[in-house]
């Protein structure tokens, strides 16, 4: 993972990061043209300076110059921007190790469709963390004795992807093992490179990466016959329809959604319906209260709190 970052970031930034930062605590690097570099280190934002991290920006803080962000994006695409056009149009780029670059710049439209993004102005580089065992406490609630459709609710950066990944690993390696289908839309969960998952997602996990949930649900349920489908970041009605169809066909689903708590998801378009239909039997709410991955509560289909052991 460190090597992937070293390959794309300017040498000045790499030197400071290697000298002063522990990569285990690094969650995000935020780069903005002509602005100081910010890092999310241990759950808190700091500015990067040649001597390490600082709480406030000053004259010493490292600043991203003109054109640097463009260079980083080209490097991240392995000098092949044309090969990652679809990802760029969707606003992100994933590199080896599951590191995701969120892109912003000028959107180029063509007949109502995003053709590309040009003049990249800022990047949010998200560094994934593999915390083995972080989903262990959920096993007895969501996987055994009976697999329950589970929705992980969390604000961004609170660890839902890490939790889903570990849930995939544990469910796939349970006794008897479950056949897991991992729909990795942004290639963050398994970080597949050349067909090989670089993050541990279990012994009996099939991975479909870089495709929409709609396509994956439609094609894979019949072809791969999974026991559990795992997917990240539900968004929009299409995703919800896919989830509904999958659960009604008898396949169990573990999914995640961006929200602060279960009250919030009721306000999201389409989710109210899903909750009313009781498609999900478990709701796991995460927060950043005591750092990423803090369990705020686990609830059943009636929103009664379940005790975590």
């Amino acid at each position, binding site marked *: 993972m460190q090597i992937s970052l070293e390959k794309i970031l300017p040498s000045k930034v790499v030197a400071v990061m290697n000298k002063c930062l522990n990569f285990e605590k690094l969650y995000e690097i935020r780069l903005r043209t002509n602005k100081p570099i910010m890092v999310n280190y241990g759950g808190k934002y700091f500015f990067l300076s040649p001597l390490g991290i600082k709480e406030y920006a000053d004259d010493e803080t490292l600043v991203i110059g003109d054109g640097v962000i463009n260079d980083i994006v*080209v490097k991240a695409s*392995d*000098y*092949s*921007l*044309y*090969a990652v*056009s679809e990802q760029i149009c969707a606003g992100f780029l994933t590199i080896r190790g599951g590191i995701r670059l969120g892109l912003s710049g000028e959107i180029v439209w063509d007949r109502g469709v995003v053709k*590309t993004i*040009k003049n990249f102005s800022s990047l949010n580089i998200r560094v994934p963390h593999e915390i083995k065992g972080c989903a262990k406490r959920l096993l007895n609630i969501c996987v055994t004795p009976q697999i329950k459709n589970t929705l992980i609710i969390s604000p961004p950066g609170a660890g839902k992807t890490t939790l889903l990944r570990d849930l995939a690993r544990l469910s796939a390696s349970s006794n008897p093992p479950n056949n897991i289908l991992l729909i990795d839309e942004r290639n963050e969960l398994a970080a597949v490179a050349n067909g090989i998952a670089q993050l541990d997602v279990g012994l009996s996990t099939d991975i479909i990466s870089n495709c929409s949930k709609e396509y994956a649900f439609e094609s894979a349920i019949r072809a791969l016959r999974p026991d559990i489908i795992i997917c990240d970041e539900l968004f929009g009605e299409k995703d919800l329809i896919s989830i509904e169809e999958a659960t009604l066909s008898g396949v169990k689903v573990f999914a995640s959604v961006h929200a602060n708590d279960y009250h919030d998801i009721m306000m999201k378009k389409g989710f109210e319906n899903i909750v009313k239909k009781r498609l999900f039997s478990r709701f796991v709410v995460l927060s950043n209260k005591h750092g990423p991955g803090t369990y705020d509560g686990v609830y059943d289909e009636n929103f009664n709190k379940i005790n975590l052991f």
Partner: protein
Amino acid sequence: MITTFLIITISMSLGAVVGLYFSKRLQRRAAYFDALMDLINLFLSEMKFKKTTTKQVLTEFRDRAKTPLNTNLTEYIDCTDFSNLKLSKGGLTISERAEVNKFLLSLGTSDSHTQIFELENFKEKFSQMQNIAQEKRKKYAPMCIKLGFLAGLAIGIIII
């Protein structure tokens, strides 16, 4: 008599070698542009259909056949800092080399629509260079050895 014969033989041989060098150079230039055109065509098809990365296309092309372009491709593939990419001459003029440099540096730096447009432009430019190089090869390459041979003979006679 033997000395005269030796001088003429040596000067004729040297002249022929010089002629051969120029003939090979013309052939090499033409082969270079032929390879460049093949590379652009391969690149266009690979990027349109398979979305193969730049380095993969270049490596595959380089490993497929021995062409005069291979040295420059290796220089590009092995380069870690493209702001300092320096290509060896390979029998090209300064402006031709600059154009090849520009072409290699443009690879993979834009979205597919722009990249295709850029490649078509380079294809047109290199096609003109290819035509000129092929014409010169046809015209002068066979002549170079003969001229070298004759020039050697003339020099030999002058020396005597």
